[in-house]
């Protein structure tokens, strides 16, 4: 390792003193930047660069072209569908829940309970959440059993399974809805009571207020948060893995298998898949940031 320039300065006080504050200040943040480069920037760059290289390190677009084979396209598509449905579903239900809890005229204790639960539930994702849903709606799950013994309804005869598309969405909603509530409640708090009263006194009713005032004000944060939920579901691995094993051909599950054992027999194709995922999550996060900035203007 080459010594840092700061260390080469002779310890003569008169000389070092003017330069010291600058180099010293940079020294304070240096560990963070080293860490960020090693564990955030380099790994991402490595994959992005690798996506444009063949096995010998030459530039190629073949990996990206290979992304368009049916199996990979299908897995991207099913992941996007699941993420999108769980995001939109989570956003809509989360919005209704946040509305009911904050503005629905319910007793005061409802709100802190809702907020506390919404703080906990998103952290209950992953393998344990999968276990919980298996115990509930799995083939031998309690609800499945109750539906049969009470109503004579055979849930699994309908083609439903907790380990398939809709089952996974149902499980994802368990962390998507509270996440939406967590982000949206502050936005709903930002709706001033006086706006509603001003609308009322000018002759408006509830519909007018929501149509012309509240929804337009909330729109950026509604859409933005939905995008965030999308990215959140898109990158999730553990819940799906715990619930379905490799039963659903999600991109993340495929990538998981690829990292473990190069199931695609093509290292650089794995990089290309990573690049595809990064592009999708970066785009949805960027859109979120842009929309977020637009909401700020109102408040």
């Amino acid at each position: 390792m080459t010594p840092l320039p700061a260390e080469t300065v002779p310890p003569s006080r008169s000389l070092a003193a003017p330069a010291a504050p600058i180099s010293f200040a940079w020294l304070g943040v240096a560990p963070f930047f080293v860490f960020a480069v090693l564990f955030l920037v380099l790994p991402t760059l490595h994959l992005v660069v690798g996506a444009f290289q063949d096995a010998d390190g030459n530039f190629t677009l073949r990996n990206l072209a290979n992304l368009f084979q049916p199996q990979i396209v299908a897995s991207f598509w099913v992941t996007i569908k699941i993420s999108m449905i769980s995001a939109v579903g989570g956003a809509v239900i989360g919005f209704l829940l946040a509305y009911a809890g904050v503005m629905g005229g319910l007793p005061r204790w409802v709100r802190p309970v809702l907020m506390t639960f919404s703080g906990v539930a998103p952290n209950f994702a992953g393998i344990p959440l999968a276990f919980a849903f298996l115990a509930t709606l799995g083939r031998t799950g309690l609800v499945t059993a109750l539906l049969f013994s009470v109503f004579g309804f055979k849930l699994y005869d309908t083609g439903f399974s907790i380990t398939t598309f809709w089952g996974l969405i149902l499980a994802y909603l368990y962390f998507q809805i509270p996440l939406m509530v967590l982000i949206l409640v502050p936005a709903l708090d930002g709706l001033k009571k006086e706006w509603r009263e001003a609308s009322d006194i000018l002759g408006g009713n509830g519909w007018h207020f929501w149509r012309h005032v509240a929804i337009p004000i909330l729109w950026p944060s509604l859409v933005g948060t939905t995008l965030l939920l999308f990215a959140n579901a898109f990158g999730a691995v553990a819940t799906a893995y715990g619930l379905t094993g490799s039963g659903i051909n999600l991109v993340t599950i495929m990538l998981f298998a690829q990292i473990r054992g190069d199931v695609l027999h093509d290292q650089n194709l794995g990089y290309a898949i990573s690049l595809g995922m990064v592009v999708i999550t970066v785009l949805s996060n960027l859109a979120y940031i842009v929309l977020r900035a637009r909401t700020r203007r109102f408040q």
Partner: protein
Amino acid sequence: MRRARWVSWLIMAICTVYFATPLLCTFEFSLRLKRGEYSFAAYENVFKDSRFQETFLYSTVLSAATIVFGTLLVVPTAYWVQLRLPRLRPVVEFLTLMPLVIPAIILVFGYVRIYNSSSILPMTSASWSTDMLLGCSYITLALPYMYRAIDTGLQSIDVKTLTEAAESLGAKWPSILFGVILPNLRVAIVSSAFLTFATVIGEFTMASLLDRPAFGPYLQLIGASRAYEPSALAVITFLITWGCMGVIQLLGRGRRGSVSASAY
């Protein structure tokens, strides 16, 4: 507004059913190990399992390391950015938010490739260095909310005045950091520590791909091989999560914005 109240109750009721049912079912399921009676036998099996003890201890130690080193990494950075280098704020904020944008599986994929046994920094070649790598990857996971909690904490105590006051009394910077700044950040640090613990303890993807004997992969293994024990483990994990969040809520009472809310 008065007419809408029953609609609110209805929404609340439906959501309560949705959120409570899996928890109740899991608990009920976990008690069914012995045929014909409810018992805590599944829990006994879990606690007696040496792999449970080993993996849980492993994850606990690792999350403790994550908390200590993450805090040591974040506090000076946030302090310095606020006090001396405000120009760097956008860059630092961007970097701390990166883990929310880049999925964990992508990051760990990068680690596996960069730090493999034939690279300049062969962190995956020995188990102790792989443990370090997993710890570092957990720090990246915790970075977004850790940084925000501590940055908000620093803003609320007015670092500049505190530092100047300490400097005017002749304090050197290490004693300022450890003697003045850190004690004032206690709540922010402890909150982010519990959030980190709740996140790290059951983490699966990174631990599994780096092939470490952590609690997350153990959960998955039990899930694939046992019937009732997974439910018992889910209940235990849920209680841990709930406990951590409870502590954060208690600490955060009366303060603006909780840690978990600012993490997203």
